[in-house]
C-alpha cells in the first residue's frame, strides 16, 4: 500500500485536479449504480409497481391525480426518473465494462499472437482488423445486434438483449487493443529477456503470457479507460436507436430516446436528467483516461 502511495502515478494523480474530480464523479456514479436497489425509492424494472396515473409528474411537484411526489419527476409510464436513472446507469456501466473486458481479452490475445508468431497468422489477423476499421464501429455493432436478434428465440430476447449488446460492442472494439498490443509485442519480442526465456526452452504461450504480456499492459490500460467511455456511449447510441436495451428495462440511452419525444411538449425532465448523467459519466471516464495516458507516457514526464 505504501508502495502505491509513494508511486509516481499516485503523485501525478494527487497533483491533478482534473483527475481527482473525474475520479470522484466516476466513483459516485459507479457506487450509486452498484447500490441502486438500496438507494432507489422504487424498482422501475418491475412493471407491476408502476402506476400509469403517475405519468408526467413534474420534478418535486405532487402528481395531480395521485398526489405522489418524485425527486426528478416521472416519465410517460409513471416511472420515477431518479430510480430509472440509477437502474439505467447499472445497465450502461455493466454493458460498458463487460464489452471493454471482452474486447480487451480478445484484442490482447490476437495482438500477442500476431505480434509474436508473425507470418500468415499476423497477416490474417491484422488485415481482418484493417477491414473492420473501415466500418464505423456503431455500424458493426448494429449488424451484430441485428443478426443475433434474428437467431435468438423470441422468449429469450429480453434476457439476451444485454448480452448481445456486450457482444456487439465488444466485437466492434477489439481492433484497437490488438493493434496496440501487436506493436508493443514486436518491440518486446526482440529484447534479451525474451531471447533468454526462449533459450531455456519456455513454451511460446508461456513466453507470451508470462513475459511479454505484463510489459505491454500499460498502454492497454489507457485504451481500456478511453474505450470504456466510448462503449458507454455506443450502448447509449444503440439503445437510443431502439436496437439496444428493451423499453421495459431502460438504460440511459433508452431513457433519452423516450424523453426525446416529449421535448416539444415541455416535459423536459424525462430527457434532461438521464442526458446529464450520461454526459457526466462519459466525460469523467474520458478525462480519467486522458490523464492516465499522460501519466503513463514516459515522454511527457
Amino acid at each position, binding site marked *: 500500500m505504501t508502495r502505491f502511495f509513494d508511486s509516481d502515478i499516485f503523485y501525478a494523480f494527487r497533483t491533478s485536479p482534473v483527475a481527482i474530480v473525474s475520479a470522484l464523479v466516476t466513483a459516485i456514479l459507479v457506487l450509486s449504480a452498484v447500490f441502486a436497489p438500496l438507494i432507489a425509492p422504487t424498482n422501475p424494472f*418491475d*412493471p*407491476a409497481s*408502476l402506476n*400509469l*396515473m403517475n*405519468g*408526467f409528474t413534474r420534478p418535486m411537484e405532487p402528481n395531480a*391525480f395521485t398526489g405522489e411526489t418524485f425527486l426528478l419527476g416521472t416519465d*410517460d*409510464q*409513471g416511472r420515477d426518473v431518479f430510480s430509472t436513472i440509477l437502474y439505467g446507469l447499472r445497465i450502461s456501466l455493466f454493458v460498458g465494462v463487460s464489452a471493454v473486458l471482452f474486447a480487451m481479452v480478445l484484442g490482447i490475445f490476437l495482438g500477442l499472437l500476431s505480434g509474436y508468431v508473425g507470418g500468415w497468422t499476423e497477416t490474417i489477423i491484422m488485415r481482418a482488423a484493417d477491414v473492420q476499421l473501415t466500418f464505423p464501429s456503431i455500424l458493426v455493432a448494429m449488424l451484430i445486434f441485428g443478426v443475433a436478434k434474428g437467431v435468438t*428465440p*423470441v*422468449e429469450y*430476447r*429480453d434476457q439476451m438483449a444485454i448480452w448481445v449488446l456486450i457482444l456487439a460492442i465488444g466485437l466492434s472494439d477489439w481492433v484497437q487493443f490488438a493493434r496496440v498490443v501487436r506493436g508493443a509485442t514486436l518491440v518486446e519480442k526482440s529484447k534479451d529477456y525474451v531471447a533468454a526465456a526462449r533459450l531455456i526452452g519456455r513454451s511460446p504461450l508461456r513466453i507470451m503470457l508470462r513475459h511479454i504480456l505484463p510489459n505491454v499492459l500499460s498502454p492497454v490500460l489507457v485504451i481500456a479507460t478511453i474505450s470504456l467511455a466510448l462503449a458507454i456511449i455506443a450502448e447509449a447510441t444503440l439503445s437510443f436507436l*431502439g436496437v439496444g436495451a*428493451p*423499453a*421495459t428495462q431502460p438504460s440511459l440511452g433508452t431513457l433519452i430516446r423516450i424523453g*426525446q*419525444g*416529449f*421535448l*416539444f*411538449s*415541455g*416535459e423536459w425532465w424525462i430527457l434532461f436528467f438521464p442526458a446529464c448523467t450520461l454526459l457526466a459519466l462519459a466525460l469523467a471516464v474520458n478525462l480519467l483516461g486522458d490523464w492516465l495516458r499522460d501519466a503513463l507516457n514516459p515522454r511527457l514526464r
Partner: protein
Amino acid sequence: MHRLSTALALVLALPATAEEFNFAVTTDPQTMDPHAVNSTPVLGFLNNVYEGLVRRGKDMSIEPSLAVSWEPIGEGEGWRFKLREGVTFQDGAAFNADDVVFSYERAASEQADTSSWFAPVSEVIKVDDYTVDIMTTAPNPIFPDSIANWMMMDSGWAEANGAARPDKDQGNYATLNANGTGPFQVVSRQPDLETVLEPHAGWWGEVEHNLTRVTMTPIQNPATALAALLSGDVDFINPVPIQDVARLEGNPEVRVIQGIEARVIMLGFDQQEGSAESGQGGADMFLDPRAREAVAKAINVPAILQTIMRGNAEVASQMVSPAMRGFSEANAAPYVYDAEAARSLAEEAGLAGQTIAFKCPNDRYLNDEAVCQAVTSMLAQAGMDVSLDAMPVSNYWPELRADNFDMYLLGWSPGTFDAEHPIRFLAATQDDEAKLGSWNFGGYSNARVDELLPMIQSEIDDTARQAMLDETAKILQDEVAYVPLYVQPLVWGARSGVELTQRPDDFFILRWVTVN
C-alpha cells in the same frame, strides 16, 4: 423601405415555392401496388395515384369516379357499372372495361391482399367497352360501398412489365412504379426515403388543388416530424404527437386538425390450438376465454387515455366506433377495469407462471409502444407475466403472419365504414378459399359468427341486419374475441397557409389541398 423589402420578398418567394408541397408520414407505404397490401398507409397514399369505380367524398359518401353510374341487376344478382369515357392512364393508355376485368382478376387473385373484398363476387363480365356487370353470389346491397379502394390498373401496362399479379413478399415492377388514372403520378420512388408526385395532366376531373409537385418523406420519429413542420421543412405531418397539441395551438404558423378516426385499437390473442408457434413454447394460454377476459379486466383504458393520449381518445366497446354504420348500441358498454377479478380469472385460467409474448408495432399507431408498455405493467399488476417486443411495422406484419405471438396490438379501420367489415376480416374463421378472416391472425373461430356473416352481407332490411350485427357483437364481446381499447384520434398538423380536408379514414387526399 421595410414595407418595400417585405413586398419584394413576397414577390420573389411566391412563384418558386407556393405550390411545391412537402409532407411527412410516420409509415412509408410498403408498396406502390394497390392490390398487394391492404393497409391505410398504402391505400391512403395510392388514392392520389390510382382510382376506383367509385370513390368517397369529403363526407365519406360514395360518389362516381371511374364509373359514372351503377344499378342493381335483377333481384340482386349483381351490379351494372357504366364506365366513364375518355379516361387515360398516366402513361397515356385508355381506360375501358378490359381494365376493370383485369383489375378484378388481379385484386381477387390468391397473391393479392385485397382478395377478401371480392368474397361476395362470383364473376365480372364485360358487356361492352364501357359497361361492366359484377355478379354477386347473393344479394349485396352495400357492394358499391365496399369497393371505393379497389383501384383500377392498366392491363397492358401490368402485363408488359411482368406485374400481372401482385407479389407481396418479393415485389415486382408494380411495387416501385405506378400507373393509375388518378390526379397525381409518381415521378420518383425511393422506399423509406422520398416519393415525388406530380399532377397528371390528362386527369379527367376538375382540378381543385394548386400543387405542382408533391414530396412525401417518411419521418419515423414524430418529434422529428414536428420539428420539420415547425421549421417549415414540411407543410404537413400526420400524426402530430398528441403531447404537443396543446403547445401548437398557440403557434400562429401552424394549425392542428383534430378528429376521431374510424380506427379502433384492440388486443388480439393466439387462440389456435398447438399451431405452428415457433419460439412460443407452444403454450395455448389464450384458448381459455377466461384468460382473455382476465386481460380485458386488467387494463385500465381510461388511465391510458388520460395520460398517454392526454384525453384525446374515446374508450371502445366493440370492433367499430359509434360513428360507423351497424355499430351495436345494445353492446356499447366497454369491459370494466377490475384488477382483483382479473387476477383471480388469470389464476383460474392457468396464466400464472407463463410468459405472455406480447407483440407491438412502434411506428404504426399513435403512441403504440407507450400503450403497449402501459398494458404490460397493468397485466403485471394483475399477476400476469408479459414479455413485450416492440418493432417497426415492416417487421410486425410478417411476425404476426408467422404466428409468433401470444397477444398483439392491432388497429382496425373499416374500409366500408360498416360494422360488417371487421367481422369479415377479424372474426370470421380463417378460410383462404372463401377469402375470409384474412387478418384473423389469432385464429378466432365461432360457428354462429360464421353463419351470421353471409346473412348480414345479403340482408337488405336494416332492422333485421342490425339485429344480426348486434348478435355478432354480443358473441364477440362475451367470448372476448378481441379486447377493444379505444378509438384512435386523428391529429394532423399543417402550416397555416395550407387548406385541406381531413377524412375519418385517415386518408390524406392531395386533390383537396391548396397552398396559399
